């Protein structure tokens, strides 16, 4: 019943939008020179990273908050009573554990590599965290890591730690430098790397959590 309205409206909107976009003049402002001019004092080498972790680091701070929040919300939604034991590898399954044993350390190396490359390439902590999370997921799927239900104290601190570190650095800089997340140019690189390292761990845990907390009930929903 909604279909005859939605689809023509959507198409019409798309057509108008595309025509308008094609017609669009160059923007009044160009931020690229600004980004480039301040790159030297930003503490990182890659412009996208500079935007993410320095110029617009506040966005990134809130975004990590969103991610942590989503994890907390998922925990709040999931049932608190433990269900029956989660999927773990059976004894006949030898290939998968082997894969996990080999791949997980490799993924750790890749994660650290991505983190260290982050200052000169986009991403850093995010890709690194994603790869760590993938490693955790892999370990879980290959039966080497039990599923997560309700996180224990240390896991909870691990999940929130990176974000707290980020907030803490922001707060200290606010007190010392007078502005939220205003890095002194000399120490920007170190501070950003510190934040990113904390984030990598927490993001890894959070992203893994998004999967592992979700995967515990019987769940073949697709």
């Amino acid at each position: 019943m909604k279909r005859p309205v939605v689809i023509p409206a959507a198409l019409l909107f798309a057509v108008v939008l595309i025509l308008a976009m094609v017609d669009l003049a160059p923007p009044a402002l160009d931020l690229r020179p600004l980004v480039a001019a301040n790159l030297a004092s930003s503490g990182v080498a890659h412009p996208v990273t500079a935007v993410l972790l320095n110029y617009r680091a506040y966005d990134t701070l809130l975004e990590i908050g969103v991610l942590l929040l989503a994890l907390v919300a998922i925990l709040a939604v999931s049932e608190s009573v433990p269900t029956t034991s989660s999927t773990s590898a059976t004894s006949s399954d030898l290939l998968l554990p082997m894969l996990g044993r080999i791949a997980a350390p490799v993924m750790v190396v890749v994660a650290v590599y991505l983190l260290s490359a982050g200052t000169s390439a986009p991403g850093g902590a995010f890709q690194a965290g994603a790869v760590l999370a993938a490693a955790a997921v892999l370990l879980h799927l290959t039966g080497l890591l039990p599923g997560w239900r309700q996180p224990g104290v240390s896991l909870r601190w691990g999940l929130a730690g990176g974000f707290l570190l980020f907030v803490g650095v922001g707060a200290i800089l606010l007190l010392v430098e007078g502005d939220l997340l205003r890095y002194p140019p000399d120490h920007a690189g170190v501070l950003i790397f510190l934040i990113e390292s904390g984030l990598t761990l927490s993001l890894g845990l959070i992203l893994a959590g998004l999967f592992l907390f979700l995967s515990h009930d019987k769940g073949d929903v697709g």
Partner: protein
Amino acid sequence: MNPVMMIAILRRGALLSFLWWILTEGRRDAWVAGFVAIGAALWLSLRLCAPRSTQISVGGLGAFLGYFIWNSVRGGVQVALLALRGRRALHPGTLELQLNLASPAPRIFVANVLALMPGTVSVRLNGKRLRLHVIDERMPIVAEVKALEVLIARMFGERV
């Protein structure tokens, strides 16, 4: 520290360092982070699989890889030609056969690898019985599977 552990650390450390070297494309300034990475990975690796449990034979692996790459190309070319000619060239069908491998892990490996080999896709592995979908029933599939089995058995250190 026992020598087995020692050798394992050295072997794995070397492999991981090589990996790091590839990843950083040989940059020297990255080695500080590299030590952290290799250390962490080594620790994880030793926790996940104690030394001695490595059983994959290097020679077997090499032989398998050669066979695998060559047949991948064959399989790709065959499918590409079939795709160009359309469905009138197809003579698909299913095939059930018995695997000889003793342990389940290599059997699963065979089932997976067959997806990349010419003409076959594994449909269902049921114990030792394997059902395959073949794109051309006229091909000598059974013989090829046997050959693959032998290679994989060697790699896993098993006798067929």
